[in-house]
């Protein structure tokens, strides 16, 4: 399908400072269809952030290839927006200039100037255009960071634990906001998370990953309609299923360790 994302036999090794090779991702095959909301979930060290960085083009795979449509991913590009756990807003620019940064570097600012206001409104930051990042709360900064990534109309939005640093209440608000934005902008979203609840609430497809070796353990399709009810029996069943997979992987490791 056009615009789909494919991982084909992707491996990634890192060299540590001591010269040892660390296997950060060992052979991943995955297909993500256009418009899907995919969550990558798993304990730390399972390679989920590595997958996202490879897809963003910030790192290159040791083996294998990532395709978007029929194009190979070789370097970062504005067709894939990226949001980190830390908002990473540029502290020397105010909110307006942060959000319009992508347009300015691509020389689109003049023709799309009015979009900036729209996106500021989309993430609910109207009235804060002139504020600097350090003057805003963590949640507001993360919204600004989201708007900055969205304004360039990326085909896919890559989210690396974007809500991890937020309090529970802001977090739930932002989850709904993500769903709303996705509906309005019709884009593929791929999100790394630690939170099983969040994954089941948001995703069409949950990729459960396990560490040592870092690989995909299981892919679970979620067939619940939006908006989802966190108390729905199917919701609860999926949650415990994922927890079981993760828990099982953890226990197995523990036994191995004891021997």
């Amino acid at each position, binding site marked *: 399908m056009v615009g789909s994302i494919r991982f084909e036999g992707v491996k990634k090794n890192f060299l540590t400072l001591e010269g040892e090779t660390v296997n950060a991702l060992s052979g991943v095959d995955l297909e993500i269809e256009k418009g899907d909301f995919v969550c990558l979930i798993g304990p730390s060290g399972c390679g989920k952030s590595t997958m996202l960085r490879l897809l*963003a*083009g*910030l790192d290159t795979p040791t083996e294998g290839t990532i395709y978007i449509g029929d194009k190979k991913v070789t*370097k*970062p*590009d*504005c067709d*894939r*927006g*990226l949001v*980190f756990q*830390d908002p*990473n807003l*540029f*502290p*020397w*620019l*105010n909110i307006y200039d942060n959000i319009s*940064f*992508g347009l*300015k*570097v*691509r020389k689109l600012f003049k023709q799309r100037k009015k979009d900036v206001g729209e996106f500021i409104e989309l993430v609910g930051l109207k009235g804060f255009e002139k504020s*600097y990042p*350090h*003057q805003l709360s963590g949640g507001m900064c993360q919204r600004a960071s989201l708007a*900055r*990534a969205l304004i*360039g109309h990326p085909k896919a939005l890559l989210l690396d634990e974007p809500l991890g640093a937020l309090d529970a209440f802001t977090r739930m608000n932002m989850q709904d906001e993500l769903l709303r934005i996705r509906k309005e902008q019709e884009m593929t979203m791929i999100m790394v998370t630690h939170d099983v609840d969040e994954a089941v609430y948001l995703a069409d497809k949950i990729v459960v990953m396990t560490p040592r070796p870092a690989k995909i353990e299981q892919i679970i399709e979620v067939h619940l309609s939006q908006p989802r009810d966190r108390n729905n029996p199917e919701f609860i069943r999926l949650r415990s299923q994922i927890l079981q997979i993760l828990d099982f992987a953890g226990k197995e490791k523990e036994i191995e360790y004891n021997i």
Partner: protein
Amino acid sequence: MKAIKALLPLISAVLAEIVAFGVSDSPLHQKSAHPYFAYLLIIVTVLYYAGVLITSKTVKKKPSEHPPFYRAVFLAGVILFFNILNIVTVKTALLPVLYFPSLDRVFGTLVEDRELIFKCIKFSMGLLAKGVLGGLIVGFFMGIAVGFSKTAEYWINPIIRILGPIPSTAWIPVLLVLFAKASSASAFIIGISVWFPTVVLTSSGISNVKNSYFEVSSTLGSNNLQKIFRIGVPSAMPSIFLGLFNGICGSFVALMTAEMIGAKYGIGWYVNWQKEMMAYSNVYAGLIVIAVLFYLIITVLFKVRDKVLGWQKGVIKW
């Protein structure tokens, strides 16, 4: 209590005026054409109270925090100090007459010798501007190159480490051979003293930029040049400014030294020349001019810093 505090500068000034006009001068001191010190005292006092009146109307702070009001005791102390200085010099000749001329003559020099002093200021500022601008531009771009390019770092960094710490004035013998004009050599000395801190702090500032800023900017579509000038430079600006500040302070020293090699004018030259003529009233006048000039430059620099680096938060301010 408040009223007394506000009146302290006036009381101190009146005391000084009484001493200046009421006590006769020591016959050992050379006469001055006018009582310049007394005039200056009147001007300062009038300006001060005018300032108090204006700010008390415009500034909306507690009266005790108004800048002029806050400085009342300080100003009174300064006037008292000058009063004592006046007594131990021209009034009683307690200090050696040759090296400690009367305040009237020191301030008188600023008025009577103003044409030459003004010429010297113009010359010094021209030299300083040339040197600082040159050193700054070279330091800035070299720092960017070293900060971003591994090759530049490999080749340029050792040169910076070896040549940078040499005090700029130690280059004088070499520069006099290399440059036909003494003024070019002088500008070069100032340039070196600005270049070193600027290049070091620019490159270190750029290597300390958070890598994720570059990553974010590349996913937003910026090319390498944009990454340098839209991410690297603004992010390293606090460090670059620190380098610039150190450089400019160093350039003052370099300026004074530079004017000793074959200069025809210049405020450093003026002080040095007058010292050789044993005209110590002119030496002090020159020092006052230097202090005021450099104070103004530093103040402007601080203002620019506050404007450019206003986005910083929770950072050690300098």
